[in-house]
């Protein structure tokens, strides 16, 4: 019943009836299912619209930075810097001013979106896939398989994301996009796995799963066709929020000097090289900081909106 958000709406208090919710007289079309229902609600949610617009803008910025530079009057090449411009103030031709090396800061900040978006999204997709596969296996089979997977998860849980990442990244000499993502994946799959496992356990004993078993359906068919589509919503919600968290962790790592290394262009590195001069040249800190905050906030707000739309108990 938990996946039936709308059916109870027409008679919220008539709980006395076992078949409450038989509101679709004559089988006429009224509701369209969890995802379509959620979409109806999301479409009208200003927070969702604002956050998805923001994420779309930053997505474009990461994929096609030139889209944000072709009209730019200043220097739109991130690698051509002139020390004579060092720490120049924002102006009409250099909107965000210049950094220490005399690189155009607007151009730098635009190019910095790429690392954040790639690391954030890639980490969550890879960690989420691990979580979905092993979480559903643990939840479906239970017993020893569950005990093994759950205990490993618990132990892994003991290592905080940032601490684990610092320790591992310190040990690696060369830290590129791939290495940072890999280390972040290694420490971020646990919560999603737990969510997947418990959602699977909840659906595993559903009557429709028994019906499929009674028909002789294979285990893979049961998990893929019957359990996964009904159990994945919480992981999607959490994953969306987690993109924002991963982005901020990546920036933190870069800031601490254990993330990506120069000459990579990332917001974390920009903040790192500017924070000691915050009083003299505040714009060097403010612009990447604000961009970072907006992206993180956008993912968190979007995740929240998704949760409201997908969680039937809140309707």
């Amino acid at each position, binding site marked *: 019943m938990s996946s039936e958000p709308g059916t109870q709406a027409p008679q919220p208090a008539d709980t006395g009836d076992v078949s409450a919710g038989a509101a679709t007289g004559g089988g006429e079309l009224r509701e369209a299912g969890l995802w379509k229902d959620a979409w109806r609600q999301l479409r009208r949610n200003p927070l969702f619209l604002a956050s998805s617009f923001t994420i779309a803008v930053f997505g474009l910025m990461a994929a096609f930075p030139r889209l944000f530079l072709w009209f730019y009057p200043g220097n739109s090449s991130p690698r051509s810097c002139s020390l004579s411009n060092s720490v120049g103030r924002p102006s009409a031709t250099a909107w965000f001013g210049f950094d220490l090396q005399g690189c155009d800061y607007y151009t730098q900040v635009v190019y910095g979106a790429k690392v954040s978006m790639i690391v954030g999204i890639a980490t969550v997709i890879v960690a989420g896939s691990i979580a979905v596969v092993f979480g559903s296996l643990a939840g479906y089979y239970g017993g020893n398989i569950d005990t093994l997977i759950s205990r490993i998860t618990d132990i892994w849980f003991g290592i905080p994301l940032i601490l684990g990442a610092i320790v591992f990244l310190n040990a690696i000499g060369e830290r590129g996009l791939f290495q940072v993502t890999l280390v972040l994946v290694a420490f971020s799959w646990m919560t999603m796995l737990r969510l997947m496992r418990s959602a699977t356990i909840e659906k595993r004993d559903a009557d429709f799963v028994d019906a499929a078993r009674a028909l002789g359906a294979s285990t893979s068919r049961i998990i893929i*066709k019957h359990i996964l589509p009904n159990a994945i919503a919480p992981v999607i919600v959490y994953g969306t929020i987690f993109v924002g968290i991963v982005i901020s962790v990546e920036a933190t790592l870069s800031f601490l000097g254990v993330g990506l290394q120069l000459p990579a262009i990332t917001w974390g590195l920009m903040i790192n090289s500017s924070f000691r001069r915050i009083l003299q040249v505040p714009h060097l800190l403010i612009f990447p900081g604000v961009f970072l905050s907006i992206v993180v906030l956008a993912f968190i707000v979007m995740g929240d909106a998704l949760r409201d739309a997908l969680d039937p108990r809140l309707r």
Partner: protein
Amino acid sequence: MSDSAKTTEPLLRVENLVKWFPITQGIVFQRHVGDVKAVDGVSFELYPGETLGLVGESGCGKSTVARTLLRLEQYTGGAAYYKGQDIFQLDPGEMRKLRRNIQIIFQDPYASLNPRMTVGDIVMEPWEIHSDVVLKSQRRERAKQLLDRVGLNPDYLNRYPHQFSGGQRQRIGVARALALNPEIIICDEPVSALDVSVQAQVINLLDELQDEFNLSYIFIAHDLSVVRHISDRVGVMYLGKIIEMGNDRDIYEHAVHPYTQALLSAVPLPDPTKRDKRDRILLEGDLPSPSDPPSGCNFRTRCWKAEDRCAEEEPDLIDRFDHGHPSACFFAEPRTAVL
């Protein structure tokens, strides 16, 4: 029907079926501390074209019988022979084949249909699993025929379950169970979640389908009047055992086991003129825990006839009065009840 049926071979013979659920303690190292004796030695036979009703209150094990027969639960003991083959001993391949012949209809029409699948996907899923039953090119057509047969508009194929009311969903569940042309359908409380007015529609549908496809039903329900209407024979269950069995008359008019008598006398009758004429047996107390059932006869703790013997010795389910009307009580005797 049952008399003529008994001259033929039974389709299904269940012998001393036992299903215990272990109770464990501890998280990493699980310690076995006891068992819930959900089904504790149930035997019956099901003949072709017959409906066998199983009635009893919650916790009597009637649904567990169904689930264990379908191997949705692992059996603990006993055997169930379908045309001579023990269901519990089949390998996975053989079991898959057998599932074509034994299907199930569930109680909750909201929980038994996958909300992410269309009605068409649900009804055609049996043919995807057993792909030789209906050719791929003919499946949509056959699915439409099935929907039509269970009283739904065939054009509903692309709709989702939540667009239907409870009764309509239950029809979808019936269509799914019929898809493989089974011989036996286990109906686990198929109408108890439905409104009275819709309940009768589904009962009629099940009746018609039985004649049309020569189905045998095991019909599990707690509603005694529904079971009486649809069943040829009825088994009454209490704490994991069948305590009385017989045809409609045997059970409803000449019940001999005290529990059956109490159960019947407790059923509220939709007839106010009988209100004060009935001789009520109000049972004392609650159902004992199935993890620690009473010794001897497990009904003795609530029985007004119980004597010392009942605590020491378990009464067998044997014919005590009429032929084919076994009961499990030392002091079984007929009692006329106003029904």
